[in-house]
């Protein structure tokens, strides 16, 4: 990084689209700040939850070959894994939804397209979170017997 210090006299110039835009500098809310912070906080938690989940499921427990209904029933008999999976579901879904929201904002050009894509995204997210939560809470491990 010595190369970086060899020309501190030249200030960086951010070109046209990234220079000060013609819109009000301040918005009324800090939503984007909270969204940015949420991505970092949830991301760190998800590193533990998701990598733990992948390691246990794919390597320690022998992968999808071992998985059947009884396996899931045994797992969700424990409140620990219920809470783990519930937390993972909510955090991952909101983290992913916000990520895709940013991508939609970046690449859509027309208001209609942006609005439609976001409506589809939020609908799919709401249904998926509700369905997953319902399944974790109302699952009956005795169903199979």
């Amino acid at each position: 990084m010595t190369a970086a210090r060899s020309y501190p006299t030249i200030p960086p110039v951010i070109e046209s689209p990234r220079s000060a835009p013609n819109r009000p500098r301040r918005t009324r809310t800090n939503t984007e700040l909270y969204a940015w912070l949420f991505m970092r906080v949830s991301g760190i938690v998800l590193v533990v939850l998701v990598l733990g989940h992948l390691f246990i499921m794919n390597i320690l427990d022998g992968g999808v070959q071992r998985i059947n209904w009884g396996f899931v029933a045994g797992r969700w008999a424990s409140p620990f894994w219920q809470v783990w999976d519930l937390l993972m579901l909510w955090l991952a879904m909101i983290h992913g939804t916000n990520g895709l929201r940013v991508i939609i904002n970046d690449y859509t050009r027309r208001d209609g397209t942006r609005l439609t894509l976001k409506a589809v995204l939020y609908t799919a997210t709401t249904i998926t979170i509700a369905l997953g939560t319902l399944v974790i809470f109302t699952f009956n491990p005795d169903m199979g017997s």
Partner: protein
Amino acid sequence: MSTVAPSTSPSRRGSPQRTRIAGSLYRGREGMWSWVAHRITGVLTFFFLFAHVLDTALVRVSPESYDRVIDTYKNPFVNLMEIGLVGAVLFHALNGLRIVAIDFWARGTRYQRQMLWAIVLVWVAVMVPGAFFMFKHSFEQLFGSVS
């Protein structure tokens, strides 16, 4: 901003036109490509997540319907896709930690390039044994004694 490591070092000298590019952190090279990879792996993982919640929701329908769907995953082709998914998630996780370091660590932007190569190294070190153990069963199924 002036402490930011330039990603386009050739523009350091030369015409003013080329100098203009010098300060933009994410133009080209490691900074930009890790950003691109972060987006792609994130979107892939998110789309998989929808499918994964839906298939797991079948445990609430009946043991038979869940087992029938899970059985369609038990082949070497899906196994390869699983390894790809794990690779995507692992990159996204490691690069996410790098982004947190860039945002919150005072020297983060200065070392963003070195941090990228560090996480690539960790990724390879985890994926080589990881892929081996994940594909073990499929390998035995394809070429060995297990049916």
